C-alpha cells in the first residue's frame, strides 16, 4: 500500500499519456492559470501537504480501485468500516455534558436526550479527573467543568431514570476507570445485568494524557499500563459490550499536532496497546474489535476527510498484516469525533456555529461512528443550555435536512480527495515509522518525543496565525471594534451553596458506610495492585460496589504505583 500511496500523489510521477485532447486542454488551462496566478506557490495544508490548483485523472493514473478503495466494510476499508455506513445507521449524537452536582447533570442529560441525543456522555469535574474526591480540593473550582461524581450514591443520581441497559454510555473515565465501576455498582443495585451495559471508556488512553493534556494523569506510567490491561481483561469477561479502550488523537491535535501527526501518533499508541495485549498472550481477534478511537476534527475540511480515510486504511492494514487479525471486526477503525475547540474564537462567537458545521461535515464525510459538536460558546465557558441546543441542532440539520448520509463515502472518487488521502497516508506513516524507531509509543512518550512534536507544531501554527499566513476570521482579519463584539454570555459556575450541600452529602455518605466493608475492599485493592497477576480492576469494581469513593480508590493506587507527573517539554 505504501508503494501505491507514494506513486499516487503528484502529476510529475504519473505515466505520460499520448498527446490527446486532454493534453491540449491541460496546456491551455495551464497557460491561463499562469497568467492568472503567476508564480504564486501552492498552498500547504496544516499537515504540510502542498495542494495543487486542480486534480485530474492524471493524478490517479495507475490506481487500482480494489487495492486502494474497495467497498465499505471490506478491505482496505477506505470507504467505510460497515457495508451500509451512515445509510444504515447514522452516528451516535454524543454531546459531552457535565456540570455542577449530580442532580444538575441528570437534568441536563434528560434535556439532551429529549432533543435528539442518542447516547449518554459524562464529563466529570476536574477534581475527579485528577483522581480526588471533592472534599480534597479547593471549593472554588468544583463542578465548574464537569459533574462532581465521587460515590455510588452520586452515580445513582446522575443516572436516575436513564435506561443504562439500553443506551450506550461514554464515560470520560481515565485509569483506574472508577466511573465505569460506579456505573456497574448502580446497575447492580438496579438489577441490570452487566452484560447489557454498553459504551466506551473514553480517555482510557493514558499515553495521550501523559503526552498531551496532563489533565487526567493519575498514576505513574507503569501503574497506568497495568490497570488499563486489567480493565480490558475485566470488561472482556464481565461487560462484553463495553469498549474498554478508546485511543485518543484528540488531545494531541488539540495540543498542537497537525492532523497527520495526530493520526500517526494515535495509531502509534494503538500499536503500543495492541503489542501490550499480545504480550499478555491474548488473541488479536479477541481484543482488537473492542479498540475504538477518538479524534479531533479541525476546520481544515478536505484535510480532515483525507485524514480519516487514510487512518482507516492504515488501521485495516496494520491489524491484518502487522497483528495478524483474521476477523473483519478487528480491522474496523471505529471512531468518535469532536469538533475542534482550538478553531473556535472568542471574537464574534456566533461565527463558531458555521465553523462547527464545517468541522462536523468533515467528520461525517470522514465516516465517523459518533460525534460531539462543540457549542459556539465553548471558547467562553462550559456551554450554556442555548448554545448546546444549537450544537445538537447542527447535527440534526446535517443528518436529517441536508442529505449528507444518502450516499456512502460521497467524496470518494474525487481526484483531489483520493490524491490527498494518499498523501496524508504517506505523512501519517512517516510519523508511525518515527515512533517505531523510538521503540514504540510508550518509550517515545517517556523520552518526550510526541510532546515535542505537539509543541513544535502548536508554535508553528500560532506563528502562522500571528504572521497572517493563516486567516482566523475575527481574530487576525475582519475584526470588529471591541464595543461591537459583545455577544458573549458565559455560564456561571454552580453556586457555592450547592457545592457546600454536595460536600455535606459526601460527608454523610462516607459516615453511613460500613467501615469494615470499605477497609476490606481497600485492602483487597492494595493486595491486587501489589500482586503480579491479580486483576486490579476487578478490585476497583468491588470497591465501588462496597461504597469506596473515587478519591479513595485513586489514593490507594497512587500509594502503590506513584503519581504520574507528566514530562514537560517546553
Amino acid at each position, binding site marked *: 500500500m505504501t508503494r501505491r500511496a507514494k506513486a499516487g500523489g503528484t502529476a510529475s510521477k504519473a505515466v505520460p499519456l499520448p498527446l490527446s485532447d486532454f493534453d491540449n486542454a491541460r496546456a491551455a488551462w495551464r497557460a491561463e492559470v499562469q497568467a492568472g496566478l503567476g508564480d504564486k506557490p501552492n498552498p500547504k495544508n496544516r499537515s504540510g501537504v502542498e495542494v495543487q490548483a486542480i486534480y485530474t485523472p492524471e493524478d490517479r493514473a495507475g490506481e487500482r480501485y480494489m487495492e486502494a478503495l474497495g467497498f465499505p466494510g471490506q478491505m482496505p476499508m477506505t470507504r467505510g468500516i460497515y457495508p451500509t455506513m451512515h445509510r444504515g445507521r447514522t452516528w451516535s449524537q454524543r454531546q459531552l455534558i457535565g456540570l455542577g452536582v449530580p442532580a444538575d447533570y441528570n437534568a441536563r442529560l434528560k434535556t439532551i436526550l429529549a432533543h435528539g441525543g442518542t447516547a449518554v456522555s459524562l464529563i466529570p469535574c476536574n477534581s475527579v479527573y485528577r483522581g480526588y474526591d471533592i472534599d480534597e480540593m479547593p471549593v*472554588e473550582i468544583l463542578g465548574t467543568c464537569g459533574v462532581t461524581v465521587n460515590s455510588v450514591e452520586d452515580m445513582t443520581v446522575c443516572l436516575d431514570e436513564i435506561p443504562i441497559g439500553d443506551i450506550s454510555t461514554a464515560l470520560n473515565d481515565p485509569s483506574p476507570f472508577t466511573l465505569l465501576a460506579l456505573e456497574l455498582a448502580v446497575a447492580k443495585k438496579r438489577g441490570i445485568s452487566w452484560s447489557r451495559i454498553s459504551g466506551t471508556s473514553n480517555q482510557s488512553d493514558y499515553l495521550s494524557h501523559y503526552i498531551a*493534556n496532563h489533565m487526567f494523569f493519575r498514576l505513574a506510567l507503569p501503574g497506568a499500563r497495568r490497570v488499563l490491561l486489567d480493565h480490558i481483561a475485566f470488561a472482556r469477561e464481565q461487560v462484553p459490550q463495553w469498549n474498554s479502550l478508546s485511543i485518543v488523537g484528540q488531545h494531541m491535535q488539540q495540543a*498542537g499536532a497537525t492532523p497527520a501527526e495526530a493520526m500517526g501518533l494515535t495509531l502509534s499508541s494503538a500499536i503500543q496497546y495492541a503489542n501490550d495485549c499480545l504480550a499478555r498472550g491474548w488473541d488479536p481477534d479477541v481484543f482488537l474489535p473492542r479498540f475504538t478511537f477518538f479524534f479531533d476534527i479541525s476546520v481544515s475540511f478536505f484535510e480532515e476527510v483525507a485524514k480519516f480515510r487514510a487512518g482507516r486504511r492504515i488501521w485495516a492494514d496494520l491489524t491484518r498484516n502487522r497483528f495478524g487479525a483474521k476477523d473483519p471486526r478487528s480491522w474496523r477503525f471505529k471512531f468518535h469525533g469532536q469538533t475542534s475547540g482550538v478553531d473556535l474564537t472568542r471574537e464574534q462567537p456566533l461565527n463558531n456555529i458555521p465553523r462547527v458545521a464545517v468541522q462536523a461535515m468533515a467528520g461525517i464525510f470522514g465516516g465517523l461512528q459518533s460525534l460531539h459538536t462543540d457549542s459556539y460558546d465553548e471558547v*467562553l*465557558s462550559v456551554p450554556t443550555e442555548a448554545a448546546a441546543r444549537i450544537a445538537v441542532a447542527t447535527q440534526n440539520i446535517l443528518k436529517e435536512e441536508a442529505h449528507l448520509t444518502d450516499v456512502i463515502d460521497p467524496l470518494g472518487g474525487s481526484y483531489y480527495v483520493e490524491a490527498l488521502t494518499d498523501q496524508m497516508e504517506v505523512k501519517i506513516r512517516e510519523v508511525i515509522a518515527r515512533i517505531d524507531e523510538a521503540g514504540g509509543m510508550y518509550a517515545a512518550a517517556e523520552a518526550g518525543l510526541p510532546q515535542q512534536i505537539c509543541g513544535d507544531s502548536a508554535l508553528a501554527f500560532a506563528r502562522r496565525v500571528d504572521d497572517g499566513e493563516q486567516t482566523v476570521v475575527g481574530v487576525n482579519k475582519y475584526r470588529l471594534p471591541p464595543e461591537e463584539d459583545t455577544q458573549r454570555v458565559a455560564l456561571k459556575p454552580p453556586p457555592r451553596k450547592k457545592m457546600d450541600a454536595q460536600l455535606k452529602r459526601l460527608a454523610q455518605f462516607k459516615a453511613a458506610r460500613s467501615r469494615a466493608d470499605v477497609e476490606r475492599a481497600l485492602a483487597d485493592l492494595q493486595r491486587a495492585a501489589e500482586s503480579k497477576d491479580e486483576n486490579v480492576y476487578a478490585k476497583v469494581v468491588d470497591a465501588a460496589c462496597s461504597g469506596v469513593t473515587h478519591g479513595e480508590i485513586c489514593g490507594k493506587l497512587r500509594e502503590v504505583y506513584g503519581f504520574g507527573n507528566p514530562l514537560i517539554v*517546553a
Partner: protein
Amino acid sequence: MSQLHPPKVLVTKIGLDGHDRGSRVVAAYLRDAGMEVLYTPPWQEISQVIRLAEEEDVDVIGISSLATDHLLVPKLMKALKKAGLDYLPVVVGGIVPDDDEKKLKKAGVRQVFHPGASREEIVSGVAALAAEARAAKEREVFA
C-alpha cells in the same frame, strides 16, 4: 529598568487542569522576544508559585488557565500580598469569561489575555509590566 538582565517571567498553571498548549506558545513567544522564562509543569500550588516568584526574582507572573482555574487567582493575589510581593504584576491568559475578568482585575490582576490575543499584544504587554516591576524593585532597594 536595569539593562543587565532581560525581563524574567514565570509562566505557570495553578489548580487542576493540565492543558498547556497556550502556555507553551506564550513561553516561546516571550523567549523569542528576549525574555527569560521560568516554565513550570501544571498543577502548581499557590504557595509554590509564591516561593518560585521570590526565589527566582521574577518580574512578571503569568498564569495560564483553560478550565476555570482562573477562579483561584484571587487566592493567589491575596497570598502575594501577604508575602509582600504585591508589586509583582500578575497576568492571566486563557479562557476567562468577561464577568470573571472584571473580578480578576478587581483582585489586582494587571492584564487578561484572551485566546485571540496576538503575539505583539502579549509580548509588549508583558514587557511593559516587567519594566514597571523592575522600577518598583529598584525603588525598594534605594528606599
